[in-house]
């Protein structure tokens, strides 16, 4: 049986290279992810554009709050895959989710 997946490509102003603040994380999630995410899918790919190089811990926490309350911390690693050209962004998102 095929895995059910979806792919969400985030869009930001071209001048934005850093993501900060908890309310902004929630806003991006509400506007770009929530309408497109289906928690029953096996995997959801969330793609950050190449220009984004850093995300503050509070942005990450705001962005993932609803996802965590829906599927929990443990399932995030299996069901949510962050795509980014910047490895440091991917690893910092993982670290910031823990604390």
């Amino acid at each position: 049986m095929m895995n059910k997946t979806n792919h969400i490509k985030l869009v930001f102003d071209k001048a934005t290279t850093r993501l900060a603040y908890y309310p902004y994380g929630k806003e991006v999630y509400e506007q770009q992810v929530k309408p497109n995410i289906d928690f029953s899918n096996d995997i959801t790919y969330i793609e950050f554009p190449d220009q984004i190089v850093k995300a503050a811990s509070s942005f990450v926490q705001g962005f993932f709050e609803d996802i965590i309350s829906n599927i929990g911390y443990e399932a995030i690693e299996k069901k949510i895959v962050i795509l980014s050209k910047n490895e440091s962004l991917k690893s910092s998102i993982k670290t910031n989710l823990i604390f």
Partner: protein
Amino acid sequence: MQVISLVLSVVSLIVSIIVGVYDKKVDKKLNNISIASTYFNDLYKDLLLNKIPQNRKKITITANGKLVGSDDLIQTLKDIRSNSLYFFYTDVTFYNNLKTKLQDLENYILASEDEELFGEEQTTVLNQISDKIADVYKVMTEKCLKG
């Protein structure tokens, strides 16, 4: 005469009780401060005395107005946050207060990195970073002194 003697004995007893209770409170307070300072020494000593000042020095503004050199300071803020998890269980008010100050500084630095800073803006941003670092120290010093 007997009445005076009795009154003096009662007063003496009351004073002894008050002094005893006060001493016990002071002892408890000093004990708490001693425990807190031991934990702070183990959890934060190098971060507070060396890493923050050293890594703050690496932040500069380039000729084209970009704030750079913050990676190590941001990492230090994350290290402080992760070292503070003990307080999540023992003093959640302090933990949340500290986390807010650390994230406030991190947010400000990252948001400033997307700006082009010229003239007075440069001084303002660098001063704000120093002020927000001072806020982090203040929260931690207060906790250490409070026990």
